[in-house]
């Protein structure tokens, strides 16, 4: 299953690649916001706050990339849109759990960063344009940096039993 559809990497322009990168960050931001809402609704406020923080980080990445895009190409229309993307850097919906702990949340984020790294690594051999290759390499390497940051947080996070299943039967007003 490819997380990006309808895009020919061999013919991708630098402008469209930047737009794709912006959308990848946007998709991740939106998913973390959704997770934050879900967990706030399901009485898991600490992890809801953590995912809100992740959403702000993804938004910062998005804004940085968007600024680069606008500096280079202005506000010309894009050839890529969100319909081309399927969970490139966004954690998958199944990763969220009511009453999950911070450690599980960090593992979710790490899995998403690993997935994004895999996406850029797999796309790179198909990218011919040197400028585009440089951008994809930069984005891929950033994912490695992000993984290191998450791993460092994980190392500081105490091991706690996963309580998400213990309360699985707790009702929420429908």
């Amino acid at each position, binding site marked *: 299953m*490819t997380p990006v559809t309808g895009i020919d990497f061999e013919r991708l322009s630098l402008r469209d690649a930047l737009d794709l990168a912006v959308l990848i960050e946007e998709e991740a931001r939106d998913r973390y916001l959704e997770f934050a809402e*879900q967990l706030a609704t399901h009485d898991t406020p600490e992890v809801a706050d953590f995912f809100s923080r992740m959403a702000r980080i993804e938004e910062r990445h998005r804004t940085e990339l968007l600024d680069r895009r606008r500096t280079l190409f202005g506000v010309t229309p894009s050839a890529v849109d969100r319909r081309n993307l399927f969970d490139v850097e966004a954690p998958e919906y199944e990763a969220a759990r009511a009453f999950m702990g911070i450690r599980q949340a960090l593992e979710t984020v790490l899995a998403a960063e690993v997935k994004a790294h895999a996406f850029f690594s797999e796309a790179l051999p198909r990218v011919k344009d040197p400028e585009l290759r440089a951008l994809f390499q930069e984005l891929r390497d950033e994912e490695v940096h992000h993984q290191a940051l998450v791993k460092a947080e994980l190392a500081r996070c105490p091991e706690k039993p996963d309580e998400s299943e213990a309360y699985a039967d707790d009702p929420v007003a429908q």
Partner: protein
Amino acid sequence: MNTLLAPNDYKSPLKPIWCPGCGDYGVVQALYRALSAVGRPPHEIAFISGIGCSSRIPGYTTAYGFNTVHGRALPIAQGVKLARPELLVIVAGGDGDGFSIGGGHVPHAIRRNVDLTYLVMDNQVYGLTKGQLSPTSPRGLKTVTSPMGSLEQPINPLLTVLAYGAGFVAQATPADMPGMTALIEEAIRYPGFSFVNIQSPCITFGEEEQQLKAHKARMKPLASLGHDPANQLAALDLARAYGTELYTGVFFRNPSPPPTYDVLVRERQVELQRGEPRPRSRVLDNFPRS
């Protein structure tokens, strides 16, 4: 590709309250994307649902929505389509709503061939009411209503709708988001009754082998098997594997879709308007006098 309406244009401000990890989050996302690809604006779409977790979907879209009563989504959707044929009508519900409480409506919606898209989020359990046996629960499943395991044979939704003559029958899973999005779009575009069985797992009461992680390992796209969706007999044969194999894709697409009921009704209305109006006083002439 339509660029006027983005997927988020179909997303309502109402926040879903499904359990975190529920398969329905993926379904509603796929739906936003499919609707964006089809390009009909929200005010030209009506979402009709029954009762259950998945039946909350109308509230999460910007289209017209009617969260009706248990099992009655299909009759109401047929009424909406006949009264307002210009609307794109999508029906959403769960396996219990569609194949137990509303099971009697399925054959009639299919044989009439009303132009509807019916999305069933099949999680093999009654999730909203906290985990009872549903019509698609596998035999042996232990639930609060079957503590020693179910003795019942599950309904096979794919075989059921194929046997009744549905013109478009597919199966999807949120484990394959691009595939599910494409199938929903194709179902919406099909001119006639279309059915997508979405294996959308219940994270709280579903079995481990029904979760998305297991789906990723088990799913077999029908296209990779070389299945011809125009072959109804082959579709019936493949559909028999429901519950043992997880085939995804189009089982059957009628290559020559018959006229839809809503079109036939409109034609009859035009025909009646052309003829001499029958006076009310002559209505009783229709009935034989003894």
